[in-house]
């Protein structure tokens, strides 16, 4: 097993202005990779370091993965360790549970996160609960990677953001990387973890680039990243909404509104302290998610904020900006209207600051 000592804490933040993700400290001209390449590199390094690690899923072999994430891994590690499966989500997640129980470190790719619905029994009733049900006598180390999110015209059954389902299940850990560096670093931590970890990637992020350390640098699970600091409002965002929030924050800055942007990265366990501290400082919270509003994970963050000491410091109601309560539609203009865009974040954050 590779060491876990090389960790990077993305939560540390300078006084004000943008924070450059969670890259290696002071590396001159850091190398950039796409998010998708970063995921692949994490898997390659983990497989090279530990023969127990392997990847399996539908079309992860020669095809290279539905979104090209596994790419050429099959040529580097062979068809046993980069294994194509039949279309049997419940079966393959169950097989990951069994392989993990029997001492391997499986990574299972589900082609679209929507198809975790097929596998919910093995995810929530088996993987999540076995360690506890057995009183700690066994562990289920496994990673389930799946892309979520809308924006590709794939419509209602291929565009969901289902993090709230998993975040509600004790026994699971839930990760949503929003940068290439985190895609690599969080995945490495997930692979190290002795518990089942759901890693929700985002389709629209796969092609985005960012600095990524070449070494297998872990980003610890459970640390909220402060992507930007500002004094007027705290914007908490996940997944593809992080970059939209950062873009909105730039525009808000031009309007004289100074926003912090926080990215929880791990929803379970949630580092709520960093969020609460920021909201206590700004007095305003705008919570942005792609998933439909009702019952989404931002309601949990809202509830934690108002249960915390930050409650007494609130200058405005805690406010959510979320996907509409609709299935994701096919038509591009409807799909756009169904989830928050940069303009919406600018408008809502501005309103929060100006009105209260």
């Amino acid at each position, binding site marked *: 097993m590779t060491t876990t000592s090389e960790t990077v804490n993305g939560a540390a933040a300078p006084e004000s202005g943008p924070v450059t993700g969670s890259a290696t400290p002071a590396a001159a001209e850091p190398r950039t990779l796409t998010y998708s390449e970063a995921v692949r590199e994490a898997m390659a390094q983990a497989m090279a370091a530990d023969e127990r690690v392997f990847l399996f899923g539908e079309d992860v072999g020669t095809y290279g993965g539905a979104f090209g994430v596994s790419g050429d891994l099959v040529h580097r590690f062979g068809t046993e360790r980069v294994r194509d499966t039949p279309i049997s989500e419940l079966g393959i997640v169950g097989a990951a549970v069994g392989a993990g129980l029997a001492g391997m470190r499986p990574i299972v790719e589900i082609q679209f996160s929507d198809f975790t619905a097929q596998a919910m029994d093995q995810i929530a009733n088996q993987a999540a609960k076995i360690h506890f049900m057995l009183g700690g006598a066994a562990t289920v180390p496994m990673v389930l990677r799946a892309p979520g999110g809308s924006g590709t015209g794939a419509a209602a059954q291929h565009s969901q953001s289902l993090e709230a389902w998993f975040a509600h299940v004790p026994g699971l850990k839930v990760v949503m990387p929003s940068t290439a560096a985190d895609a690599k670093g969080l995945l490495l931590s997930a692979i190290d973890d002795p518990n089942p970890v759901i890693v929700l990637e985002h389709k629209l992020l796969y092609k985005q680039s960012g600095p990524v350390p070449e070494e297998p640098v872990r980003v610890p699970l459970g640390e909220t990243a402060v992507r930007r600091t500002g004094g007027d409002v705290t914007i908490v965002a996940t997944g593809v909404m992080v970059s939209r929030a950062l873009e909105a924050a730039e525009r808000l800055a031009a309007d004289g509104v100074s926003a912090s942007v926080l990215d929880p990265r791990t929803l379970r366990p949630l580092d709520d302290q960093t969020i609460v501290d920021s909201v206590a400082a700004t007095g305003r919270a705008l919570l942005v998610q792609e998933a439909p509003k009702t019952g989404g994970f931002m309601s949990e963050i809202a509830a934690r904020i108002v249960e915390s000491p930050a409650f007494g410091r609130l200058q405005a109601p805690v406010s959510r900006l979320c996907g509409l309560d609709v299935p994701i539609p096919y*038509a591009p203009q409807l799909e756009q209207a169904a989830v928050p865009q940069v303009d919406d974040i600018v408008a809502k954050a501005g309103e929060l600051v100006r009105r209260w």
Partner: protein
Amino acid sequence: MTLTTEAGRAKHALTTMWTIRRFEEAVDDMFARGLMHGTMHLSIGQEAVPTGACMALSEGDYITSTHRGHGHCIAKGAKLDAMMAELLAKETGYCRGRGGSMHIADVATGNLGANGIVAGGVPIAAGAGLAVRMRGGSQVVVSFFGDGAVNEGAWHEGVNLAAIWDLPVVFVCENNRYGMSMSVDRAFNVDTLAERARGYGIPGVTVDGNDPQAVHDVVAEAVQRARSGGGPSFVEALTYRWKGHSKSDKNLYRTREEIESWRERDPIAAFEAVVTGGGAAGSASSEVPTLSESDVEECRTLARDRVREAIRTATAAPDADAATLTDAVYAPAGESIAGGTRG
């Protein structure tokens, strides 16, 4: 009923196959030109299966379809302009632009819907069959799915329900040899998928899926059995998709030669050869050709014109309306819209 020796039938079959081919080619083209978005799964090369199967059905019968569903929809009698409008995300589309390619349904002709979920339609078909049975109706349900779907739990459970309750369902597997990239040889440990049928106590037969007559014959027999209370059947139709699985497919998992060899078995060309009497293909073609060259030309022209007309109509239609985005998440109280009339 023969499709090859009766002129009206032959024309219908040929026109349907050409319509599917031309429709898919148009979609492929518009997609490549950026006029369509999302993803599309084309049926080019597989036209004989929906054509042969749907010609074995009567009005009122149901189908459930798949992500690769344009062919089923057309063969069951859908309006091309409403299909094309859907793909173009128009308000006049079958789903008002909400569903797109993977969710087209045409409830009026009994098409209960394409499905973005592999095997998702299989238990739904069993349920439609159950509805028919409970009403004492005489309809039949054809459930289309691919080879890949056969390994899903949903398939297993849906087929077993139909089997134990003797439901009027015909399960039609379009075995095009691949899921997305995984071949049936690697995904199954049996030679024919029809061998799966025995485990549910239902008849299973493998048929040349590039021959509409052959498909029609076995489906018709299965439909007849289902309609008369004899329960479900499984039909495996061997065919091939000429195009990649979807837009992002680089065809790394199969050879150019394999694709070529199947293109040489073009179901449309073969059918034309048979019905014009030129076919050595072995079918019981009589001395007198069923269709003349000009009949064939007529079918081709009709298909091409229909598709053109659909594109024209659809293109001119208004875009899906974002103002009504939250409509139709819930149906209003009152009578539900039944997928079919009562038996």
